[in-house]
């Protein structure tokens, strides 16, 4: 049984910002961004932490809905907020820095490990980077932003983005030649 069935979470819940026009617009915009944000969170924090991460990002953003609505790139703004949430969470609780790839999680609801090989490999790869470095890799190599744009979104120097990508490529290279190995997460570079 999925959690939503177990807890009866479907339907009837209202947004925090609901009611006011800004709140409704915010709800609509965030709704549209949610699937993409969730997939990014799953790569950064693992599926077990993805939902909490997007929820916390939602709470953070909904306290100032206009900032998201007025931002020229709402996705970039929301993504940066979510990365900040994930990073704070790792800092608060180092145990969550390592993405839990448990047997239960792998074999849960969506078809088993065979379909998720790439995801697991990507999560493994990104887990060797700090939150901002991993986020930078996603922005550049998945979302198609330039290095300067990614640096701007995350509020880091472009050198950080370049180094993050270099580390990711190095990890990819070594995983292709020697198999995967997990590194711990340190501070952002």
């Amino acid at each position, binding site marked *: 049984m999925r959690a939503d069935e*177990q807890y009866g979470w479907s339907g009837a819940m209202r947004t925090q910002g609901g009611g006011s026009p800004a709140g409704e617009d915010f709800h609509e915009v965030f709704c549209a961004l949610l699937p993409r944000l969730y997939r990014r969170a799953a*790569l950064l924090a693992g599926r077990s932490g993805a939902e909490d991460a997007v929820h916390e990002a939602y709470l953070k953003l909904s306290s100032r809905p206009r900032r998201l609505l007025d931002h020229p790139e709402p996705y970039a703004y929301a993504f940066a907020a979510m990365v900040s949430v994930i990073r704070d969470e790792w800092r608060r609780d180092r145990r969550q820095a390592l993405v839990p790839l448990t047997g*239960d999680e792998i074999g849960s609801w969506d078809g088993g490990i065979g379909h998720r090989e790439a995801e697991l490999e990507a999560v493994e790869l990104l887990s060797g980077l700090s939150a901002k470095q991993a986020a930078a890799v996603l922005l550049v190599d998945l979302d198609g932003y330039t290095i300067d744009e990614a640096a701007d979104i995350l509020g880091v120097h472009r050198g950080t983005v370049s180094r993050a990508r270099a580390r990711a490529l190095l990890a990819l290279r070594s995983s292709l030649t020697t198999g995967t190995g997990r590194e711990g997460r340190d501070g952002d570079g």
Partner: protein
Amino acid sequence: MVMDEQAGSEQDELRDLLRRADSSIRIPPGLNDRVMGTTGAGDRWRARRWSRWQPVAAAIAAAVLAGGSFAAGTKFGRHTERSVRPVTAGALPADLTVYNAERPCQSLHTIECGISIRDISRVKGSITVARVWHGDVVHADCVTADADPVTDEAGVSSTRWYHVTLPHSGVTGWLPGVRTRNTVEIPLCTTH
């Protein structure tokens, strides 16, 4: 030139991997409601945040109370045993929400993630009469405070066990105290 080609090919490989990973992630059903609702995930977050500070807050509250009691006792003299009422006086049966400290288990309804309801408030020698999962609600009519100690995955330990009834099946049994995060007083068991 060869180096550039190699770097380019690695970048392509990284992008390809990320794209495949991205496309393999399915959106769980009900995500919108849980993320943007006011219950569910939000409550779990708040509970987790509170649970981090709970020991500190409890310690401060206990210190303040102890200090206050001591000061009051010193200032106003004796306090007799007769004036002390047990904290469970007036306590009533209540519904408890099952809590599984193992995070990956909180959304899974598997046997491995089930929490046993036992026929007696002991670990050894008891049998499982039912299973409950994180978030389930059970009705507790009383509690025993001196049963077998149980420690959960978060390190919380307790010798309290609740005598509970499952709402749908009507099965009764014992739930270890660490398998809920109860904040209300429940009457002490006298006959179980």
